[in-house]
């Protein structure tokens, strides 16, 4: 029930993000979501894309440091309290949330979140038990 996230290392230099996006575009891969974590000298770009393997290969071929990481993509109702309801179950465990960010808001009142946790298998088990809908790589490719 896991999905693949694409991570790219970029220096804080003008135009670098643009260059990454151009490579992904040239590979004909669609970006569904992204998050940019930054430090004073470099940034870490994390993306959910339609074809992670193709984008990863294209970036590597263009000289970027990129890698694929397993993450959970959770789909939940776009309403007050639904995120908290799911996460409180996780909070009761030893599982640590490394980072999370949102995915494109969908029309039929649902929203998705990307979650990276210290123990993905256990986290997905807990979330499924709580009634969450987890998207797979195939589901994402169809978005």
């Amino acid at each position: 029930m896991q999905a693949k996230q694409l991570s790219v290392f970029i220096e804080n230099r003008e135009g670098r993000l643009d260059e990454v996006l151009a490579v992904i575009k040239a590979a004909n891969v669609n970006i569904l979501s992204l998050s940019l974590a930054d430090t004073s000298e470099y940034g870490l770009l994390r993306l959910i894309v339609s074809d992670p393997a193709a984008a990863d290969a294209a970036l590597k071929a263009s000289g970027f440091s990129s890698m694929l990481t397993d993450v959970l993509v959770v789909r939940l109702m776009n309403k007050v309290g639904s995120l908290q309801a799911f996460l409180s179950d996780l909070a009761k465990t030893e599982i640590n949330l490394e980072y999370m960010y949102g995915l494109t808001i969908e029309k039929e009142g649902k929203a998705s979140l990307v979650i990276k946790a210290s123990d993905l298998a256990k986290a997905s088990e807990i979330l499924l038990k709580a009634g969450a809908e987890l998207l797979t790589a195939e589901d994402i490719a169809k978005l």
Partner: protein
Amino acid sequence: MIWNEKMETMSREEMRALQSERLVATVKRVYENVPAYRAKMDAIGLKPEDVKGVEDLTKLPFTTKADLRDNYPFGLFAVPQDEIVRVHASSGTTGKPTVVGYTAKDIEMWSECVARCMTMAGITKKDIIQVAYGYGLFTGGLGAHYGAEHIGATTVPMGTGNTQKLVTLMKDFGATAIACTPSYLLHISEVLKESGEVNDLKLKAAICGAEPWTEEMRLQIEKNLNIHAHDIYGLSEIMGPGVACDCEYHEGLHVCEDYFIPEIISPTTFEPVADGETGELVFTTISKEGLPLIRYRTRDLTSISYGKCKCGRTTCRISRFKGRSDDMLIIRGVNVFPSQVEEALLSIDGVSPHYHIIVDRVNNLDTLEIMVEVDGKFFSDEIKGLEALSVKIGKAVQQMIGLNAKIKLVEPRTIERSMGKAVHVTDKRKLV
């Protein structure tokens, strides 16, 4: 003022005769007591009796840092270990340091050399001198210390690392002299100038070494502190600080020639260059007991002049250094080889990434930055993973070279690839 009139002002003929006598004895001694030298000489069919004087010096094989590494730690010592009263160590080209050993007589000789140098700087037994070199395996601290005590000066073993305390004691003790690296003294001088504390000082002389510096830096220090600054040269393999120093005329550094025979060779053909031409400085020690070295290639580029100096000394003078014939860097007085940085990176997980070393001087203090390409195993998709990587690299480098470096993670292919020999260093300091 001359510390040892006899040795420092003898005629060239007398000096040559003394050097010849000592060289012959040294060659015999290393042939008999150091298997590595015996093997080197046997390999070229040279017998100790073939060396009859200084004129035969060029018949002898060279010694390099690699010989010290290959015979690590004590293999080149020419006396039994129980005759050795002290060891020092400096950076090797890789993880293993270069180890040097001294007999009690060697320490006396070293103190004599430093005493001559301090006298050139006008320091006498009446002075209070702060020794602000590092004490420990590095030869700077203890070398200067013993020399200062030998002339009878009041010696304050400051060491490095506490500038505030150094300045306080400089004022409170009324220190009249200081021994430290030139960049450190320039830094201190600017701080003191700014605070106006220069007027509270009794400082009159400085003896600076362990790193290359320019004439402009020397003049700046003299101006800032209103003192005389002298350049002291040395390297642990030959002895430590005190091999040479400049007198009040600052027209080259007088070599303690009765202990060390200098030569200048071409670093490419290894043949002696014409008098006055620049080349690589080579030393043969002719009095040392613990670790006598034959034709040791210092890798320092300079030239020699043999004319009598206005100060009255007849010892030859080496000019200000013009660089190195290898890739060694001297950062904050510490010898650093790029290969050591590479070895530190390799120690992290067996993969040596592309790297580049940037050395600069900010506010008169050397800075060291190492750019490391984030690629393959050096990549993490979490900031804390990347930060941990920086810290890990920094620690590995610190352990290898003893200096803190700023680690800058960069994208792959950011570091320029060169055809042939990789260029691993950008030195932005203008020291030559």
